[in-house]
């Protein structure tokens, strides 16, 4: 029989707007205003999921973001699917489809449920202890663990939704629109502060807005109607912005906060297209007022996790806000007055309360007396010792507590029920406060952590500050606000308040049982199935720090971050280890407070906008000519140009051969270019490069090696003297920005007396490099006015010239060992010059080549690539480049480090050439180099840094770094691979044209 547990019309529910939704494949109905949880409860559905470890049936436990159990998968198998959505937070909409998680084949019959019976052998740390040995078995274990565990499924298709990021600056940010937040917002905005009020729910007023009881009054009006008027008033204030469905994810230092504004999750699916789903708000507030309220604590007793067991405040909210009865035979179990407020509300709505079990013995308050008037049986000084009912609670067993609360006495009484409300008092929601760097203090009288010292200009107000009752909140608030906002007066002076709530509480972290603890399951963390027994076990095994206990037992590590049970875990640790709560500290509350979707985090930075890339002015030509690209730093560089389905290897062989046989052309625009000017420019270069620069003639180029002060190679490139006090430096493509940064650092901080100015001009010039024996002929066709004779324009020199009236700089420099020219021209002419060179080179079969061929050609010449043949442990001496290190210069960056005891060691790894016995065998870059494979462990002498098959030498060549390699010329070494050993001989790293004849060919 289908039940309808809607008991009373609520103004938050629109009964004229019926919504159908599916849960586990079956269609149900709710109304606009329902959450998935309230709509399921109307249909008498409590069982919504299975727990993580034992696969125990679990039901809806709360009515908010702290929900540990009722997490569902939305829209399974669609691109909009999302796991771990809390049923208590999602508003229902037409088309909603939700399924239970953690169960197979169904929530009603779950094979994993067998873990529940195996639980005696699944204690805390079980996974650590059991599956770690032998290590080789791990792969097998992992497969089964992953299959049976896991929280939900991730989508397999691209997310169709749109996400945005937005910056907000305000004077005062107020987090939480409960009664304190509303009053703070009104006070702040009315006094001229630009104010932002955010709340995670779609309505304002927090829990007071449905507190419709004669027991709570402000200025003689029932608290909710008083608050309603306030809300209507603040909606009209101009400099107050209100954002609902907006939850703060993180509260960082300097009042920087991240919030997620949810814009479409409550809309019918067909109304979401082309709308922004979530906005990530990056809020910088001058002042922050945290009014996040408090979370009700559960009580910890045997089998406290059955479907049908909810927090008292949740039962109250479902009845008052949604008009839903969570059960027809309710029992409330409490250690404070909350249950009585709930009981009276239920009674007024005609929902039956069988009994209240209160662990306090001597208690009295208006609320309690009133409850007794309604003939609700109260068991004072009792505790629940057990519950029964597998998929829904059907009975509680209670016993009397001893005076000290340490054990139970007397006979066991059983009371049938279909719903049990529990209340262990309240915990201030201090998560955001601590994220911001605030320090907590422990208040012994009611066993709560409350804000103590703040790290920025902020305050906490209301129950997140430990003021739980209406009178406490309203009496303190005006004073606090006046001080914080520096005001003389608020609208809330001398409010008349009636609050019937008595603050007394009997706090027992772990309630006693008639059974030994080993035979009970008192859950502390419901999502991760951590019990009080697990925590005690962890302590017995020697864990002391709360952070260690947390990790060992996984308490507080679920998607709910243990919002419900963390305090009890602390309490049990403190009681068991005889330490004080205040001294134990708490675990760290890390952002996000509630989970964020990846979409929200990345915003618009998806697809091609995920990572920006830089294109050279000749990029489009490369694209049209089918170049494959490689990423170098942020650049897209042409890698190789395959012709007619060529493989990369074939293309590179062809390009390399063509460049040496006739002519090749390379887009070198990505090389970093730094314009250096000033009367001390030469002196500056002397200090930053290892070689001498003072005597470089105007119009000449020189190769330079740059070190860090630790003596290790940092960058290299050719620098040209354009004029007396004017140089242009080239850097590696990837190093451009860091080299400029480093040079600026030295100029600004070490040598401010030098008259030198640095400007990055990388993007201002396109660079076309033409090389090969026919390069001279080609360039003379492109620039007929330029005298290319060796006398006028020798290797390592530069000319200012013009191509069709456009100024350009031509350098005769070479990274391939071939006769070659680099034409630098204003960037927007880059493609046209490239095309001119292609046209002029047609008769010489000019061949465009990419970075791979460039790497191969330079390797044939033994030229290094910084970052490939070097890492941050290689000196110029290690590279056998002693010739470039000036002995005469008094100092340069890195000089002193070149004769530290470590850098002068002869057994350092040094760059050498490597030739394989089999000329067709190409080594793998990164492969280890050894001398003796029989030694155990094998001594690693170094590794291969560059390796190619040279089409010009018709053999395999490689560069590598080898310990003491300089003295090993001709020596035989071994490259051990997975299935073979490759024999190599140490050789000169210059493989081709040692005499540099080709430069002038």
């Amino acid at each position, binding site marked *: 029989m289908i039940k309808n547990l809607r008991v009373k019309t609520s103004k938050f529910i629109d009964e004229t707007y019926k919504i159908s939704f599916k849960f586990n494949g079956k269609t149900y109905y709710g109304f606009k205003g329902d959450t998935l949880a309230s709509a399921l409860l109307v249909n008498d559905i409590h069982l919504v999921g299975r727990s993580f470890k034992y696969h125990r049936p679990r039901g809806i436990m709360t009515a908010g973001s702290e929900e540990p159990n009722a997490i569902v998968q939305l829209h399974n198998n669609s691109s909009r699917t999302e796991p771990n959505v809390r049923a208590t937070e999602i508003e229902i909409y037409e088309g909603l489809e939700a399924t239970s998680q953690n169960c197979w084949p169904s929530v009603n019959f779950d094979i994993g449920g067998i873990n529940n019976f195996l639980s005696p052998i699944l204690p805390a740390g079980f996974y650590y202890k059991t599956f770690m040995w032998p290590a080789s078995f791990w792969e097998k274990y992992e497969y089964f663990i992953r299959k049976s565990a896991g929280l939900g499924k991730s989508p397999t298709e691209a997310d169709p939704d749109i996400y945005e990021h937005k910056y907000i600056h305000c004077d005062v940010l107020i987090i939480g629109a409960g009664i304190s937040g509303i009053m703070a917002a009104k006070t702040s905005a009315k006094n001229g502060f630009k104010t932002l009020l955010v709340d995670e729910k779609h309505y304002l007023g927090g829990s007071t807005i449905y507190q419709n009881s004669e027991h709570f009054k402000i200025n003689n009006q029932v608290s909710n109607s008083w608050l309603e008027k306030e809300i209507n008033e603040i909606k009209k204030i101009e400099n107050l912005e209100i954002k609902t469905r907006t939850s703060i994810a993180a509260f960082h230092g300097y009042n920087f906060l991240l919030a997620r504004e949810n814009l479409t999750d409550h809309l019918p699916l067909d109304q979401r297209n082309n709308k922004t789903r979530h906005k990530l708000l990056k809020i910088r507030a001058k002042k922050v007022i945290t009014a996040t309220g408090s979370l009700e604590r559960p009580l910890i007793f045997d089998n406290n996790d059955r479907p049908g067991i909810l927090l008292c405040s949740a039962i109250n909210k479902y009845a008052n806000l949604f008009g839903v009865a969570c059960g027809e035979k309710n029992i409330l179990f409490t250690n404070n007055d909350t249950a009585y407020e709930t009981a009276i509300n239920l009674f007024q709505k005609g929902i039956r309360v069988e009994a209240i079990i209160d662990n306090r013995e001597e208690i009295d308050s208006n609320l309690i007396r009133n409850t007794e008037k309604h003939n609700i049986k109260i068991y004072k000084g009792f505790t629940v010792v057990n519950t029964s009912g597998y998929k829904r609670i059907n009975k509680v067993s209670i016993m009397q507590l001893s005076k000290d609360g340490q054990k139970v006495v007397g006979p066991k009484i059983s009371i049938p029920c279909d719903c049990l409300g529990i209340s262990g008092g309240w915990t201030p929601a201090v998560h955001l406060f601590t994220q911001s*760097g605030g320090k907590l203090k422990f208040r012994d009288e009611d066993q709560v952590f409350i804000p103590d010292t703040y790290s920025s200009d902020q305050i906490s107000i209301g129950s997140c500050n430990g003021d739980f009752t209406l009178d406490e909140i309203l009496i303190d608030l005006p004073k606090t606000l006046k001080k914080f906002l520096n005001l003389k007066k608020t609208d809330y002076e001398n409010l008349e308040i009636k609050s019937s709530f008595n603050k007394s509480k009997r706090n027992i972290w772990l309630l006693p049982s008639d059974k030994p603890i080993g035979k009970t399951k008192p859950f502390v963390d419901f999502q991760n199935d951590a019990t009080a027994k697990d925590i005690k076990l962890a302590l017995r095994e020697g864990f002391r720090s709360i952070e260690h206990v947390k990790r060992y037992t996984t308490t507080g590590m679920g998607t709910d971050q243990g919002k419900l049970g963390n305090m009890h875990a602390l309490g049990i640790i403190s009681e068991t280890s005889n330490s004080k709560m205040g001294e134990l500290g708490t675990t760290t509350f890390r952002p996000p407070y509630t989970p964020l979707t990846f979409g929200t985090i990345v915003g618009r930075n998806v697809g091609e906008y995920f990572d920006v890339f830089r294109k050279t002015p000749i990029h489009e030509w490369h694209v049209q000519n089918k170049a494959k690209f490689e990423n170098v730093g942020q650049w897209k560089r042409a890698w190789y140009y395959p012709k007619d389905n060529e493989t990369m290897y074939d293309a590179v062989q062809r390009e390399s051969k063509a460049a040496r046989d006739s002519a090749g052309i390379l887009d070198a625009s990505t090389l970093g270019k730094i314009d250096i000017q000033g009367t001390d420019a030469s002196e500056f270069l002397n200090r930053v490069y290892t070689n001498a620069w003072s005597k470089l003639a105007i119009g000449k180029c020189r190769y330079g090696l740059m070190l860090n002060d630790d003596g290790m190679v940092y960058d290299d490139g050719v620098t040209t003297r354009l004029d007396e006090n004017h140089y242009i430096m080239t850097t590696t493509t990837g190093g451009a920005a860091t080299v400029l940064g480093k040079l600026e650092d030295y100029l600004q901080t070490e040598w401010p007396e030098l008259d030198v100015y640095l400007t990055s001009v990388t993007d201002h010039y396109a660079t076309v490099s033409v090389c090969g024996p026919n390069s001279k002929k080609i360039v003379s066709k492109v620039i007929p006015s330029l005298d290319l004779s060796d006398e006028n324009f020798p290797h390592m020199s530069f000319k200012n010239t013009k191509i069709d009236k456009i100024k350009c700089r031509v350098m005769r420099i070479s990274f391939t060992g071939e006769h070659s020219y680099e034409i630098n021209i204003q960037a927007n002419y880059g493609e046209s010059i490239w095309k001119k060179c292609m046209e002029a080179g047609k008769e010489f079969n000019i061949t465009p080549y990419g970075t791979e061929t460039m790497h191969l050609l330079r390797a044939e010449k033994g030229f290094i690539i910084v970052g490939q043949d070097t890492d941050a442990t290689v000196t110029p001496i290690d590279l056998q480049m002693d010739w470039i290190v000036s002995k005469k210069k008094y100092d340069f960056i890195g000089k002193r480090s070149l004769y530290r005891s470590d850098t002068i060691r002869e057994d350092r790894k040094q760059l050498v050439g490597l030739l394989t016995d089999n000329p067709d065998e190409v080594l793998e870059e990164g492969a280890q180099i050894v001398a003796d494979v029989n030694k155990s462990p094998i001594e690693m002498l170094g590794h291969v840094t560059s390796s190619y098959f040279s089409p010009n030498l018709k053999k395999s060549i490689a560069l590598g770094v080898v310990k003491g390699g300089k003295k090993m010329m001709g020596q035989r070494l071994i490259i051990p691979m997975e299935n073979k050993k490759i024999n190599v001989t140490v050789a000169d790293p210059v493989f081709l044209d040692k005499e540099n004849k080709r430069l002038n060919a």
Partner: protein
Amino acid sequence: MFVINCPYCGVREQSEFKAGGEAHIVRPKQPTELSDDQWAEYLFMRKNIKGVQFERWIHTHGCRKWFNMVRDTSNDEIKAVYKMGEKPPIE
């Protein structure tokens, strides 16, 4: 994320800046005359203070100027910013 008062540009978000390690470490004028130990002291040894620390920062996405900052690393409070070459305004 801090808010940093660049001595040249004014108040900006931390994302515009980069930290550059401990401040007031002067590169020796005559490195060649130092022993290995003395050179290593300059090259490798840096303090990592919990508390008030003098640091170098650069306004990377702004004026590109280096400057100094006094920051309490335990709570990220910025106590002072001042230009390169200037004496720290606090001890």
